[in-house]
């Protein structure tokens, strides 16, 4: 047996073992299949332009202090597109996540936090375009709003 075959055989054995000890969970397979149901050809995208938890230079900014004195934002996210800007602050609290949002270019009223495979949640924007949502479960989410020009805008998916 030559060396490459030897290596291939050893790796194939490891693959078989990984299939037994660390197989892809069924829920992960199901979530992958279901992802296509979120395809939305009618809405415009507000792309993720900054994430304090990202490590790529183009998407990095320093976490800044905000909120009451002494509290530090755990994660700051910025989205932009279709004439809409979204600033999102995510703070981990005892019971899920607290989301504080500030939106520009959006109709006052309601936005929806969409959670893939979970329940959507409506949030109310005040007259300054701000909202607060508490007890949001961790996992992939995006925000869907109506812009002042009447278009439906969704943010990029982020894992909260």
């Amino acid at each position, binding site marked *: 047996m030559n060396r490459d075959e030897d*290596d291939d055989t*050893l*790796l194939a*054995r*490891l*693959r*078989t*073992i*990984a*299939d*037994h*000890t*660390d197989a*892809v*969970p069924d*829920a*992960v*397979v199901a*979530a*992958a*299949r279901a*992802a*296509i149901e*979120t*395809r939305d*050809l009618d809405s415009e*995208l507000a792309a993720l332009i900054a*994430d304090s*938890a*990202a*490590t*790529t230079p183009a998407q990095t900014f320093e976490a800044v202090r905000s909120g009451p004195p002494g509290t530090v934002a*755990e*994660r700051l996210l910025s989205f932009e597109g279709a004439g809409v800007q979204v600033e999102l602050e995510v703070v*981990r609290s005892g019971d899920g996540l607290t989301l504080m949002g500030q939106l520009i270019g959006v109709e006052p009223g309601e936005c929806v936090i969409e959670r*893939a*495979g979970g329940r959507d949640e409506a949030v109310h924007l005040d007259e300054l375009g701000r909202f607060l949502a508490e007890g949001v479960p*961790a*996992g*992939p989410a*995006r925000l869907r709003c109506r812009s002042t020009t009447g278009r439906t805008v969704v943010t*990029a*998916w*982020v*894992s909260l």
Partner: protein
Amino acid sequence: MDPLHQLDSAELVERVRAHDQAAWVALTERYTGLLWSVARSMRLNEEDAADAVQTTWLRLVEQLDTLREPDRVGSWLATTVRRECLAALRRRTRLATMDGWEDMADSAEPLDEALLRAERDAALWRAFHALPENCRTLLRVLMADPPPKYAEVAAALDMPIGSIGPTRRRCLDALRGILLSGPEPSDARSAGTNRGGHDESR
């Protein structure tokens, strides 16, 4: 064999764009194993790994119609899941700093030996865990089912594509070295560290 599985990835993406549900399923079957392996190779726990893989697929759906090189969708997915994993690790670290260390219990090495069919496999798996971290990471990605292309592995690990083959060879040599050094896991682990460079001698 399902004929969809013989199509190249660019053709699958085209069909998905044209609302072919079966093509989407075929695409997820081709790459979910790789994405899971990448997340686990980066030592994410099961919950974080599941979120990273799901978010990666959601991102592909979101970018489906603007994806520039559909023939490289595998590398795009690998890069995307890597970024998701790095973000998850940073969140995790920050959380651990805030809450103490109770969330840091390492569930990333599920050595459930009851599931292993033979002691020979258990010995191999123990030897694998005695490897240096860079080898464990690379080999865990290469264990993905179906096996990934080197371009996808390079994207997942942010490594030059030309270094994948030589590193794979060195790591498998090191693995054989640990296997030969004895059946005791504790011995294997120390042998793995003491013999750093053993694999460089070929």
